């Protein structure tokens, strides 16, 4: 049973408020799209849940547990940056994950990377940005975690790699997992989403079922996105 509850989450930085009283409820078996332009607070929200940033106020509950180093075991977070050790070979990165996370499926990762043409004998520093994108997503999804958080998985990635990334995300769906994808590339990703969340200047602007929105508004999620963020 995977569950993620965010209650009144606020994150203030020295000169600005990145998240303002965000309350969200995530249920298992759904893919969530966290949508908003750059600087809307998507990354901050994910980093707080991943335990890399500390909130100013409010709380986050994962399966009714407060955030701590222990909850990191339930969350597979993919940062948007290339965070992997440049001097490591891909296979060494996989070994690192295997050693650090009990739920890391090493053989699955090797097979998956083979499928998507990422050579595990290459050094991270020798990979193209498309390959880095595929590798990051594949590694995050190779953990048998309860919650997946992918921060801008399509950013800086070529069109063909985008398709591959979308494919492996769709295939990772499971009835008892939560998948959260942040992006500002809405049209590419909207057909795999259950629920969309619009984040504008750190505030939840809209939370709703993607199909419901298409039906009631007669617009694509992207169309709606453009409407909401027109002046952003």
């Amino acid at each position, binding site marked *: 049973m995977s569950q993620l509850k965010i209650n009144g989450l606020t994150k203030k930085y020295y000169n600005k408020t990145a998240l303002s009283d965000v309350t969200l409820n995530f249920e298992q078996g759904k*893919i969530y799209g966290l949508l908003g332009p750059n600087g809307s607070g998507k990354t901050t929200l994910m980093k707080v849940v991943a335990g890399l940033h500390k909130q100013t106020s409010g709380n986050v509950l994962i399966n009714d547990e407060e955030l701590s180093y222990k909850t990191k075991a339930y969350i597979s977070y993919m940062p948007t940056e290339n965070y992997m050790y440049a001097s490591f070979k891909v296979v060494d990165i996989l070994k690192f994950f295997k050693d650090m996370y009990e739920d890391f499926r090493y053989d699955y990762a090797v097979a998956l990377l083979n499928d998507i043409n990422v050579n595990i004998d290459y050094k991270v520093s020798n990979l193209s940005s498309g390959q880095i994108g595929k590798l990051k997503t594949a590694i995050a999804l190779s953990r048998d975690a309860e919650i997946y958080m992918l921060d801008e998985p399509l950013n800086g990635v070529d069109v063909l790699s985008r398709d591959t990334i979308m494919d492996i995300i*769709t295939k990772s769906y499971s009835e008892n997992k939560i998948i959260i994808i942040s992006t500002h590339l809405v049209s590419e990703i909207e*057909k795999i989403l259950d629920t969309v969340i619009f984040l504008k200047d750190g505030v939840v602007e809209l939370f709703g079922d993607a*199909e419901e929105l298409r039906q009631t508004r007669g617009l694509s999620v*992207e*169309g709606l996105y453009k409407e909401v963020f027109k002046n952003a």
Partner: protein
Amino acid sequence: MEFNNNIPIYLQVIERIKQDIVSGKLKPGEKMPSSREYSNELGINFNTVARVYKELEMEEIVFTKRGLGTFITESDKQIEELRYTMAKNRITSFIEGMKQLGYTKKDMIKFIETENNYTEGNE
């Protein structure tokens, strides 16, 4: 399959399946892919496919055998009805559209005959 993101995706998939049944591309009693397979194949959300099957089941166009999967209805009557409904929907919207253009019933029939002869002649 290309989707129009402005229309609920489950409706588009339903429409497509119905069309394939009526055209005979999907045979009566044929097994459909599982929700997971189908969502991977179409590159869409799993729950969307699950919803498609649920709606089609309510319309008795598909049926589920527990543990075996989802199958196209074996009832010729169902399929015939489906064919009729789909044809009727199209003709209704056709007639409406033509009326808006100022066509009378007679004009329409004449138009259909000449146009149909023309396309058949081309084949």
